[in-house]
Every structure is written in structure tokens, then in C-alpha cells.
């Protein structure tokens, strides 16, 4: 009876869900406690195994969901219980959270394996192999926090994960905290990311507080159930403050400035945290809060415009960047803009679909970029240790291995990396039938229905995307090597290339999970999001237009960065522009290269006044007013005067006067009385005699 029921309903593994957090936690603890004594291979294996096990659990959960589409809430314990408020520590298992778990653990596992190889070289290149252990401890901690974030069943638990990933992001951006510009550049980048995220978290917290006031609960189910009855003003406030949190975590206007600087972290960090998973947490949050957002169209509009503008804005900046990772960073901001816009316009399926696809191809691109960087570092290393070559090449030591102007011609030297990079770049550019095409097109189709302007915005952003990816591939892999180090670059080891190939395979094939007309992924999400998830219609016009535009942009990039670039090499070095676009765009290129001077603008408008205000508060208010005047003058000198009054006047005058006076009186009295003591016995006898006579006389005459 029971057995047949189980068989009929399929296997059910929901109770396993705490393990997705527990496995990485165990891996983290093993590496934390025993890591000093373990070899690099074992540390890497432990960390990777922990993530792979979490992936297996996520897969089991996914299988269970096929038989039980309603999912489950797995309570572990009561977490906070104050008065009416009861917040459980409970895991939400449904198609949305499991999708995120699969992405986090899947991409995470591949990046862990890649990092085993990458960090082996990286710690040696930076000259501190002992940090290998620390890296994997942080990496597993990140998986723990991210899993808590996506598996939470209430906003407060989600916030714990949200802060946890922020912490890991900070720790890993500043992983080489003693390196970078002026020996402190990386630390500053980490701090910038952390503080910018705090501004966003402030919004998240305010949203949570308002939620508590109006709902009295944080659990998703309860909040969504009550939402229609709550005043729409409160929900508007919640959703907008939440958007501030989203803008911080998912690097949207105006809080995106931290993400490009976050590239100071090792490349696997950029791939896992700052491209594939953490930065998509904001998108997840909006998708998770879909029942709230659909109630307030105003908030949805704001979300869409923030996303759309970010998409275009960041895409234009990416065109003029030279750092291979910065290009990808701005590309990530732009793609996150696509996702945010998608979830904002109610196209939750398209948004999450793009999130998953982006996780694959952007992780692929970042990891390949890491492979390129290390390839060039190996080339530089090779030259430094070859006396014959070292004489010819003088620039090797100061070479920036991330500057695309130093690259070129890597196609023949790093074949695997080239092919996987090409696949990732074409997927990002939106060339069918790669992953990015399907998801981006769904967003564009939805935007076309939602609002014509947003559609135009996103389409232009997509054109820029294709252009800068073409530019990047051509600058890095085509033409002739522009430095000696690049000329001697070599392919990365298998431990790095195999995860790249797997990710490339996923990038090619993953788009099939949500093919037009079939919408497997859409129906999968419908189990959780119900009527909020609607399958996006495939519009042949939109798809064709975007494909044609993308190919045009790629051809333009080909013309500029292959033909122009080649002919530019004939010019004398002094006159030769470093980018073919520079003479064409002129000052606009400089504007883009300097990121619209947004960092400078923020410094001018926010940072400098803030520093000035701080200095004013510190110097004038705190030091001069409080310290010099209030403390020293008002309190200290008043007290001093009071103390001197009470010590000189009261203590010395009155108290001591009484004591001394008493002594003096006694002394002078004693001086008078001592004369009575003559020392003559007979005198004493006489006084006794008279005394007796007196007493007797008194007694008798009484």
C-alpha cells in the first residue's frame, strides 16, 4: 500500500534539502581546521567534493519535484521567537529555489574544479602559497551563504544569505589585499564593494521593517497570502526599498560602481560570485517577490527602467574598456540589467531563464579570460627564465596581463581557450542557437509587448553587446601578438580546460530547456510562480531583427578590429592609436573609456562633500566644540574650580579648621592644667584631704 503510493508518486527527497547547506559547510570546516596540514590537491578535492555533493542533493530535489510539483517547506528549527513574531529556519523547496540551487552548485562545482588549477598558479604568481587554503574556505563559505539565500522560506533567512554572500564577496575581492594599486588597491576595491552593498542592504532592511509592520511575518507564503489585503502604498514602499537592495547586489544604476572594481579578486571569484551567482541574487529576489511586485505596477515600471537603462549604459562603457575582465564586468552589469528589466516587466520566466543561461556563458567567459591571463603570465615567466629572450623583451616585468592591448594572436597558442571563448562570446552576443540567443530573445519579445521604448533600449544594448564581444575576441585572439609574453603564451592545464569545455557544452545546449513552443522551463517555474509565470511567445520578427543586428555588429567589429587594426600596425608606434574606435569617436571614446566619469562624479557629488562633512564634524563639532569647548572649558574647568573650592575653602578651611582648632584648644588647656601637677606627694595628699573634708562637710551639712 505505502510502497505502491511511493512508486506512484515518484521518489521524494525533500527532507534532504538541509544538506545543500551542510555539505559545503562540512567542506569549509575540514579545510578551515585541517587545511594547514593538507596538500593543495586534498584541499581542492575536499572543497570541490563538497560542492559536487550539494549539486547531487539539488539534482535529487529536482527529480523529486517532477513527481511532487507542489514542493515542500522543510522546517529545521524555530529560529527567532519573540512575542507574536515567529521566524522558522526552514527551507523552501520549489522549482524556483531548486533552479537556483542547481545553478549555484552546478556552476559552482565547475568553477571549484577550475580554481584548483587556477589558484595553484595564482598563489605562486603572487608569492604566497599559504593562501590556497584560505581561498577554498572562502569559496565554500560562499556556497553555504548562497544556498541559504536561495533556499530560505522567509525574508530574514534570505537576508542572512544575502549578507553572507556580500561578506564572501568582500573577502574574495580583497583576497590579495596587500596587492593592487599602491599595495592597497585590492583592499580598497573590496571595501568599495562592501560599502556600496551596505547602501543596498539598508534598502532591503527598510523593506523588511515595513513588511514587519504591515504583515507581522516574514515567511514568503504568509506575506504573499496577505499581500492583496495590505495597503498598496506599503507594498509600493516595500518593493521600491527592495529594489534598492537589488540595485546594490545586482549592480544596477545607481549602485553598480562596485562590480567593475570587484574584478580585483581572483578570476574564479569573478566568475562564480560576480557573474554567475551572487549578483543574480537581486533578480532572484524580485522573482521570488513576484506576488508583491505584480500588485504595484508603479514599482514594476521603476524596476524595468532601472534594468533597461543599466543594460544600455553598461554596454556602452564595455565598448571602450581595455581590461579583459573589466569588459566582462560591464557586460555582466548590462546582462543583469536585462534580467532585472525582465523580472520587472513581469516576465519572470524570461528573467530567470536568462539568469541561468548567463550563469553558464558568463562563467565560461570569465574562466576563459582567467585562462588567457595565466597563459600570458606563463609566457612572461617563460621569457624571464630564458636569458636569450630576456634581452630582447624589456617590458615583461611591468606587463599588465589583463590589458587586451597587450594580447593578440592567442588563437593559435591557446586553442581550447579560444574555442570555448568564442562559444561564450557568441552566446552572449545572441547568435542562435546558443544559450544566450533564446533567453535574450524571450526578454526582447516580452519587452516588445510591455513597452516600445524599453524594447528599443534593450535592443540597442544587445547590439552593443555583440559589438564589444566581437571587439574583445578579435583583440585577444586574432591578429599578431603585440607583446613578447603573449607570443610565448601557452595553454592551461586540463584541470582548467575541462570545466571550460563542460561549460561550453552547457552554453551550446542549455538553451533547449526553454525552446519556443515547448517551454519546458516555463512550465517548470509555473509550479512555483503559478499565474505570474507565463510562457513567453516567440516572435519571429524580434528574433530575426536581433539576430541580424547582432551579426551586423559582429561584422562591424570584424571590420574595425581585424582589418583596421591590421592596417594600423603599419603606422609608426608613436602615432598609432591603441583602438581603431578612438579616432572615429574622438571625445566620446574617452568618455566611455572613463566610464562616463561616474566614479569621479560620485566622488565629487557624494564622496567629497561627505568627507568634508566628516572632517567638519570631526574637527569643528567633535574636536573644537565638544573636546576643546564643552569638555575642556565647560566640564573640566568647572569641575576643577569646584574641586579647588571644595578642597581649599571647605576642606582646608572648615573641616581642617575644626580639627586643628579642637587640637589647639586642648593643647592650651593642657598647658594651663599641667601646672596643677606639682609632683609633690604632700600636695596631692593635701588636696585629697581637702576633698574629703569638702565631701564630708557636704554630706553632713546637707
Amino acid at each position, binding site marked *: 500500500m505505502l510502497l505502491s503510493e511511493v512508486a506512484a508518486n515518484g521518489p521524494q527527497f525533500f527532507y534532504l534539502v538541509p544538506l545543500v547547506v551542510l555539505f559545503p559547510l562540512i567542506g569549509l570546516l575540514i579545510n578551515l581546521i585541517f587545511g594547514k596540514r593538507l596538500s593543495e590537491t586534498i584541499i581542492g578535492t575536499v572543497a570541490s567534493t563538497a560542492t559536487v555533493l550539494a549539486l547531487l542533493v539539488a539534482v535529487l530535489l529536482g527529480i523529486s519535484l517532477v513527481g511532487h510539483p507542489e514542493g515542500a517547506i522543510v522546517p529545521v528549527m524555530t529560529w527567532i521567537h519573540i512575542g507574536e513574531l515567529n521566524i522558522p529556519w526552514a527551507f523552501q523547496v520549489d522549482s524556483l529555489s531548486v533552479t537556483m540551487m542547481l545553478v549555484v552548485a552546478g556552476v559552482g562545482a565547475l568553477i571549484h574544479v577550475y580554481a584548483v588549477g587556477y589558484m595553484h598558479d595564482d598563489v605562486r604568481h603572487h608569492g604566497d602559497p599559504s593562501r590556497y587554503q584560505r581561498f577554498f574556505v572562502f569559496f565554500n563559505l560562499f556556497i553555504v551563504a548562497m544556498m541559504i539565500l536561495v533556499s530560505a522560506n522567509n525574508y530574514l533567512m534570505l537576508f542572512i544569505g544575502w549578507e553572507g554572500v556580500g561578506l564572501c564577496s568582500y573577502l574574495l575581492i580583497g583576497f590579495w589585499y596587500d596587492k593592487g594599486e599602491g599595495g592597497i588597491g585590492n583592499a580598497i576595491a573590496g571595501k568599495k564593494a562592501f560599502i556600496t552593498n551596505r547602501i543596498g542592504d539598508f534598502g532591503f532592511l527598510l523593506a523588511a521593517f515595513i513588511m514587519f509592520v504591515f504583515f507581522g511575518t516574514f515567511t514568503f507564503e504568509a506575506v504573499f497570502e496577505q499581500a492583496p489585503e495590505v495597503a498598496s502604498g506599503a507594498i509600493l514602499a516595500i518593493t521600491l526599498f527592495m529594489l534598492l537592495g537589488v540595485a546594490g547586489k545586482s549592480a544596477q544604476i545607481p549602485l553598480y560602481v562596485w562590480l567593475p572594481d570587484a574584478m580585483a579578486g581572483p578570476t574564479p571569484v569573478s566568475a562564480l560570485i560576480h557573474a554567475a551567482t551572487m549578483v543574480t541574487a537581486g533578480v532572484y529576489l524580485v522573482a521570488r517577490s513576484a506576488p508583491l511586485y505584480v500588485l504595484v505596477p508603479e514599482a514594476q515600471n521603476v524596476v524595468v527602467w532601472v534594468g533597461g537603462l543599466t543594460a544600455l549604459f553598461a554596454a556602452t562603457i564595455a565598448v571602450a574598456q581595455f581590461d579583459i575582465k573589466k569588459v566582462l564586468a560591464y557586460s555582466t552589469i548590462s546582462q543583469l540589467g536585462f534580467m532585472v528589466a525582465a523580472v520587472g516587466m513581469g516576465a519572470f520566466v524570461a528573467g530567470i531563464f536568462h539568469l541561468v543561461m548567463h550563469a553558464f556563458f558568463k562563467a565560461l567567459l570569465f574562466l576563459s579570460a582567467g585562462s588567457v591571463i595565466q597563459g600570458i603570465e606563463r609566457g612572461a615567466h617563460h621569457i624571464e627564465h630564458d636569458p636569450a629572450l630576456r634581452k630582447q623583451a624589456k617590458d615583461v616585468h611591468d606587463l599588465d596581463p589583463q590589458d587586451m592591448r597587450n594580447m593578440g594572436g592567442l588563437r593559435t597558442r591557446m586553442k581550447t581557450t579560444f574555442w570555448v571563448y568564442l562559444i561564450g562570446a557568441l552566446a552572449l552576443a545572441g547568435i542562435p542557437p546558443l544559450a544566450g540567443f533564446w533567453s535574450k530573445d524571450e526578454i526582447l519579445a516580452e519587452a516588445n509587448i510591455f513597452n516600445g521604448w524599453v524594447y528599443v533600449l534593450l535592443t540597442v544594448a544587445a547590439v552593443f553587446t555583440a559589438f564589444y564581444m566581437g571587439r574583445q575576441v578579435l583583440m585577444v585572439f586574432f591578429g599578431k601578438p603585440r607583446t613578447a609574453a603573449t607570443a610565448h603564451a601557452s595553454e592551461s592545464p586540463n584541470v582548467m580546460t575541462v570545466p571550460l569545455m563542460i561549460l561550453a557544452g552547457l552554453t551550446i545546449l542549455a538553451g533547449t530547456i526553454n525552446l519556443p513552443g515547448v517551454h519546458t522551463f516555463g512550465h517548470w517555474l509555473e509550479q512555483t510562480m503559478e499565474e505570474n509565470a507565463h510562457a513567453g511567445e516567440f516572435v519571429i520578427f524580434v528574433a530575426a531583427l536581433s539576430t541580424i543586428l547582432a551579426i551586423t555588429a559582429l561584422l562591424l567589429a570584424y571590420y574595425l578590429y581585424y582589418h583596421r587594426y591590421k592596417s594600423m600596425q603599419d603606422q609608426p608606434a608613436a602615432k598609432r592609436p591603441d583602438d581603431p574606435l578612438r579616432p572615429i569617436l574622438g571625445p566620446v571614446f574617452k568618455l566611455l573609456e572613463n566610464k562616463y566619469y561616474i566614479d569621479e562624479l560620485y566622488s565629487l557629488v557624494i564622496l567629497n562633500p561627505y568627507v568634508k562633512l566628516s572632517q567638519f564634524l570631526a574637527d569643528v563639532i567633535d574636536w573644537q566644540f565638544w573636546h576643546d569647548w564643552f569638555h575642556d572649558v565647560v566640564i573640566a574647568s568647572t569641575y576643577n574650580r569646584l574641586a579647588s573650592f571644595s578642597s581649599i575653602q571647605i576642606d582646608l578651611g572648615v573641616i581642617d579648621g575644626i580639627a586643628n582648632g579642637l587640637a589647639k584648644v586642648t593643647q592650651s588647656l593642657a598647658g594651663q592644667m599641667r601646672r596643677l601637677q606639682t*609632683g*609633690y606627694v*604632700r600636695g596631692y595628699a593635701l588636696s585629697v584631704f581637702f576633698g574629703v573634708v569638702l565631701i564630708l562637710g557636704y554630706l553632713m551639712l546637707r
Partner: protein
Amino acid sequence: MLPVSYYIGLSAVLFTIGAVGVLIRRNAIVIFMSIELMLNAANLAFVSYARVHGAISGQIFVFFVMAVAAAEVAVGLALIVTIFNTKQSIDVDQMNALKG
């Protein structure tokens, strides 16, 4: 039998002689003897009244006084000997170390 006032009168005379002796003489031994005189004047008064009232307690009290006087003589003479040893004199006017 003589009236009791005679005895009391004698006692008073003896006491007065003793008291004057203590006050005016400088020789320690004489002062000592004067003290004995006063004690015995008191003794005489005691026994006189004991006899008049037929109360034995007055006579018993005399024994106590005599015992105390004996002890006093022992201590006093010892003191006088010691003083003489140090000062080569028993003149009480020279013993004024307690002068204020």
C-alpha cells in the same frame, strides 16, 4: 564604762595627728607611720561602734583593715628601700618626677 564619745574623740585626735603628719612631714617613713596612725584611728572608731551596737561586723572589718595595713607596709617599705637605693634619700619632696 567610758562613754563612746571618748573613744571617738580619741580616734578623731589620732586621725588628725596622722593626717597632719602626712601633710607636713617630708620623711617617707614618718609619713608611713602617720598613715598607720590614721588606719588605727579608723580601727578604733570601728571597734567602738561595734561594741556600742553589739554588731560583730565592725570588729571583723578591723581584721580586714589590719590585713590590708600589713600588706601595705610590705609594699610600701619595699618601695621606700628601692627609692633610697636610687636617690640616696627618702625625702618625698625630692620625688617630684611627675611634675607637670
